[in-house]
């Protein structure tokens, strides 16, 4: 009963998040200065013959002269049916552009997420496992260092050495698994650092709790305490962070896809934002919000499995 209610409220919340993202983006894009329609006309190799009348005509053709609330209503109705409109810049249906862009971004994103989780967990655990103070200090400060590395720079350094100099990986394109590795590593670094930070800290806290003393009293070693008991208890904050990482993937994709010349959500986002291509930006935001909401919903629903205390009450009781 409780579980069902829990699932229902969480689902409603996810739907709300997506709707709010849609609405806020719609409003924000219309408040921006600039004239995307004039840009569209002139961006096609344009010439001085572009008159205000032509721009006005194009605006009417595209429906931008209707009252905002009417535009909002028709955009929302369209979105509910999976119709996200057409790009101002190319005339392509936005849903098709996004459908084409998702797979390459998903490849890199998935690998990056796995790498981030694996590396982050490894680092977070290692920082708590070692008994050498100096090493522990080093392992603890590594994440904050890694988080401060700009992805753009990391990507260029990786390309410079692993691709241009040593020819180990291709520097560009999406030709098979080889070409996914460098972008995924670049994208994984900030995520891994975040996971390591959160997991390391929460492991540290968990190991201070009274039950840890009990376990120690049974004669269990540091490793046994950590792996059998501590990790399970520390996993919830880490899972939450993993959910947030999914949301940051699109941002990471903008940088990584530009540096590694890959197609994907990041590239269409970047060009749509600079051209103020309203339907495309709107579509990207909605899809990103949807992905974020679904992943977080899944993680929410997973908490009870990770922690029996949530199963009983439907909410997390932290000490």
């Amino acid at each position: 009963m409780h579980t069902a209610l829990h699932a229902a409220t969480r689902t409603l919340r996810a739907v709300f998040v997506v709707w709010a993202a849609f609405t806020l983006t719609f409003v924000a894009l219309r408040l921006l200065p600039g004239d995307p329609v004039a840009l569209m006309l002139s961006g096609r190799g344009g010439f001085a013959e572009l008159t205000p009348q032509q721009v006005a005509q194009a605006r009417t053709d595209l429906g931008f002269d209707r009252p905002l609330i009417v535009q909002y209503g028709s955009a929302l109705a369209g979105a509910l049916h999976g119709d996200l409109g057409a790009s101002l810049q190319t005339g392509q249906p936005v849903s098709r552009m996004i459908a084409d862009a998702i797979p390459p971004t998903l490849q890199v994103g998935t690998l990056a997420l796995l790498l981030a989780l694996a590396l982050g967990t490894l680092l977070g655990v290692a920082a708590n496992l070692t008994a050498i103070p100096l090493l522990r200090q080093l392992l603890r400060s590594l994440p904050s260092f890694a988080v401060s590395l700009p992805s753009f720079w990391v990507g260029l350094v990786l390309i410079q050495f692993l691709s241009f100099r040593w020819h180990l990986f291709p520097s560009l394109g999406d030709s098979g698994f080889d070409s996914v590795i460098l972008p995924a590593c670049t994208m994984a670094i900030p995520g891994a650092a975040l996971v390591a930070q959160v997991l390391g800290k929460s492991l540290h806290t968990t190991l201070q709790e009274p039950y840890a003393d009990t376990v120690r009293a049974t004669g269990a070693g540091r490793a046994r305490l950590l792996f059998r008991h501590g990790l399970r208890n520390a996993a919830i904050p880490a899972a939450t962070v993993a959910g947030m990482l999914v949301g940051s993937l699109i941002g990471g994709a903008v940088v990584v896809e530009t540096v590694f010349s890959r197609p994907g959500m990041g590239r269409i986002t970047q060009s749509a934002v600079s051209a103020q291509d309203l339907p495309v930006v709107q579509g990207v935001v909605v899809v990103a919000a949807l992905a974020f909401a679904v992943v977080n919903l899944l993680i929410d629903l997973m908490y009870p499995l990770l922690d029996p205390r949530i199963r009983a009450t439907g909410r997390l009781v932290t000490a």
Partner: protein
Amino acid sequence: MPTRTTRSRRRPRLAGALLAVVLPVAACSGGGGDSGGTSDGAPRDGGTLLVGAEADPGCLDPQQTGQISAIDVTRSVVDSLTAQDPKSGKIVPWLAKSFTTSADGSAFTFVLRDGVTFSDGKPVDAAAVKTTFDNLVKLPANGAPSYLIGYRGTTVTDSHTLTVTFKTANAQFLQATSTVGLGILSPASFTASAADRCRGEFIGSGPYVLDHYHTNREAVLNKRADYAWPSSLAAHKGAAHLAEVKFTFIPEAGARTGALSSGQVGIAKALQPTDEAQFTGNGFRVLSAPGPGLVPPLSLNHQGILADQKVREALLKGIDRQGLVDSVFSDSYKTATSVLSSATPYYEDFSDRLRHDPQGAKSLLDSAGWKEGKNGIREKDGKPLTLTWLIPAPMPPANEAVQQQLRKIGVDLKLKAVTPAVYVEQQQKGNFDLTAVGVTRADPDVLRNIFYTKSANLWHLPPSRLDTYLEQEAAATDAKTRQTAVSNAVRWILDHADTVPLYEGAQVHGVSDKVRGFTLDASNRFDLHDTWLG
């Protein structure tokens, strides 16, 4: 086709248009582009040429986009009625084996050559030409469609003969027929929607066929084995040598140069001036040519402070063009010597009017009432001499150099970099003192696009005798009359300081020595028909 460029050669798409301008250009003496590796040995057939392209054009349809990044791809897919010799600027036969202009300059008759087919097997005949032009005029009149302003229609006389008629004389039309924008498409192309044509669903008669175009990834061309109708400029008459050409879109300049030096591509487009040195000798070469058309200038809004001709003249004299080129560019770039670049037909050297003269600039400002004020910025009636330069982001380094130069004569230049959408809006509203709009086209009619007060006139020029000169240029039916009109127009523009020419842009590519016979056409676009891999 005319492309406006904004100074940074990185984003032709956005910058394109009415925007700012940069210049794509090619350099080599006299324009065209010489390939450096052309004459070594007999051409070999086969192989794949990999090109690192600077941007995904977003749209490939030659009728709908004038961007360099698109035309470099489509020039090999779509043939035109005529071609333009990069060295002389002359219009020569291509799909049309002959062409004549009516005495009043308003009608053009073309006779097509025999045996030419589109890649869908349909013949390139007079009806196909008519269909191409009839569809082109339906598009918004900027870019290629603007070449057909005043289009009355195309009359098909027989399957190989047609006449294109305009309401008035149209001197620029013949050159326009050599551009890819007026390239001839198979009638089947027009059954696809405009958006699908953008994605590559158009059919031409060129030496290559578009295999596929994947957004933000690549555009791939395949050789057409039965091709046998290159323009009269081509080195060989048969099919292209390369089996395949793959344009990969690599937006990051450092990744592009790295891809070239590590052998991952054979040509890296749009080299940064700072990267050129690493590609001279050592198995590479730099291919560059000055861009024909209007040089990237300071375009002056003739409202506000710059309504005063003396202030405009002071800007003209206050620029040290040689210093600008030396400090910000490479050897591939030249100083401006006219409003038109030296690679433009009907160009004439006006460098005597473009001398750096800081003293002259200062006394002009003095006499205009702008006296030295605090911090060296001039003032008049308590107001500082501050001018706003509207720039589409990202800002190119040359702008800061110009800012520093004008600071020396007491002008405070505010650099205002904005997003492209804001740029277009502000430009249309006239919210700027300066901006930079150049146009790439191998025809002096670019002057009319920018300076004619009866077109958009973004600079708020007052009507003057300049309009008459530009009308004479557009209506000229012989080269001598046209030259006189063009020279009069340029002289008028410089005498009234209606614009401040800065430098000649260049399209600069890094090329591996394995790539032979690679040239640029008169508009500085890729010509891959004679290219082969050694």
